[in-house]
């Protein structure tokens, strides 16, 4: 159902590091779960809509107003690596 290469590709898309052992387990487990999901292919749902909104909600709007947050220090305090008040990340390009 799903092969090793696909598992590696999906893991990269999902930004998940997997070791060789885990790739093998994922291959097996995902395959059995996906087989189970295959049962849906036989069901006809063509006429059904794809959205599921509550009838009670219609376009929730709010004013586009600038607000200041009071907990900046707390929020920034959680950042693992910072420099001059900015979040530091590795080179992107």
């Amino acid at each position: 159902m799903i092969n090793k290469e696909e598992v590696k590709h999906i893991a990269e898309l999902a930004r998940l590091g997997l070791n060789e052992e885990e790739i093998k387990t994922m291959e097996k487990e995902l395959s059995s779960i996906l087989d189970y999901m295959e049962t849906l292919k036989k069901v006809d749902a063509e006429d059904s809509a794809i959205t599921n909104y509550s009838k009670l909600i219609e376009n929730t709007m709010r004013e586009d107003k600038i607000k200041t947050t009071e907990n900046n220090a707390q929020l920034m305090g959680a950042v693992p690596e910072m420099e001059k008040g900015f979040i530091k990340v590795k080179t992107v390009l």
Partner: protein
Amino acid sequence: MKLSKLDINQLHQGLVKKEFSSQEITKDFLEQIEKKNKEIFAYLSVHKESALAQAEKVDALIAEKKEIPLLAGIPTAMKDIIMIEGEKCTAASKILADYTASFDATVIKKLKEQGAVILGKTNMDEFAMGSSTENSAFGITRNPCDTERVPGGSSGGSAAAVAADMCVYSLGSDTGGSIRLPASFCGTVGLKPTYGRISRYGLMAFASSLDQIGPLTKTVADAKIVYDAIKGKDPLDSTSVEVKDEDKKISVKGLKIGVPKEYFVKGMDPEVEKVIRETIKKYEQEGAIIEEISLPSTSYALPVYYIIATSEASSNLARYDGIKYGFSKTKDSKSLLDVYLQSREEGMGEEVRRRIMLGTYVLSAGYYDAYYIKAQKLRNIIKRDFAQAFEKVDVIFTPVSPTVAFKIGDKIADPLSMYLGDIYTISVNLAGLPAMSTPCGKAHNLPVGLQIIGPEFSENKIFSVGQILENYGH
């Protein structure tokens, strides 16, 4: 008098009449936690000082003869996925092991306004993914009814804390049964409210179109008190809605109860079925009309659920990237990609990674239409099934789970068998309906929960119907 045995109303009356103080109640519960948490492990963290300080404030109000709200001075516990400002919030994940919340969830704000005493944060399956609380990064919670067994999940700590008298009530979250299943396994009441009835602001997101916060309590009356305290529209959650709850007294005479034939099939423990059937019989004897109904798309619910829930999870959990907060390998990694890969590899547990993988797969190019779109369409069909059933009946009765609490370790190695245990609860989340687990008897000497499902925003009806069973003294 053992204060930790009392329900909300009894404690409130006692406080107002000055039979005991909030500090006495709080100390009693802290003592219970001290005594039992080592074995049960319902709590991940206990906020002793802030709890006692809050209790003191309520006692001062009572001394000044001020009127106090129902939940003032009453000790409670929060699933560790609900944010309390200044307190750790881990979602039972290593990736958030040292994370401190910087704001209060709306439900916390509402409870604090009432003067609630928050005792601590409860254990759960990591990011609410699981049915047994065995997926916590910090250890398993044991079922107080039998410590060799799981408490159910994912709000297992919240249910165990109520069942073991380690709090009066607790809050959990329910994405596919995560309040109702542990309530059923531990013998407490557990309500999953209508989607949109309670603000999700400050609840860490798992699957946003399914998640709801709800109470776990000792009694149906308590569930209503807590529900009333936390419900309502919130500008910070645009999916929340304001509706007026109907407050009509429900009479069991002539009450139409639907029993879906698709829910009583093989795979259910015959002892559990017997307890559920006997419960339905009691309602019939009291004058209710029992009707067999059909929910034809029941068999698709589980695959539909796991496609939608994992899709939403793979997107929601992308935020845990080792950059902004939480566990990070940024200092030991060479590239940006490595920071992501390694932080998430080390920080996230097996089940969470499995679900992120599944969700990413079903959303990926080439599979999106076959899985995600198909699941969304079927979700509407499942919703329609319920709507048609509620044209004929007032409420629907089903078991919460096909089995009683299972042994620790029994299902953890086989994810699919664990998923199958949610078969009776997930349709309700897909349809956005309210449902409550109410204790209705015992099988194999372990609690069995009856699931009462109602139409959208019929929580009050569900409470009255559940109350009938409670009065009957099951």
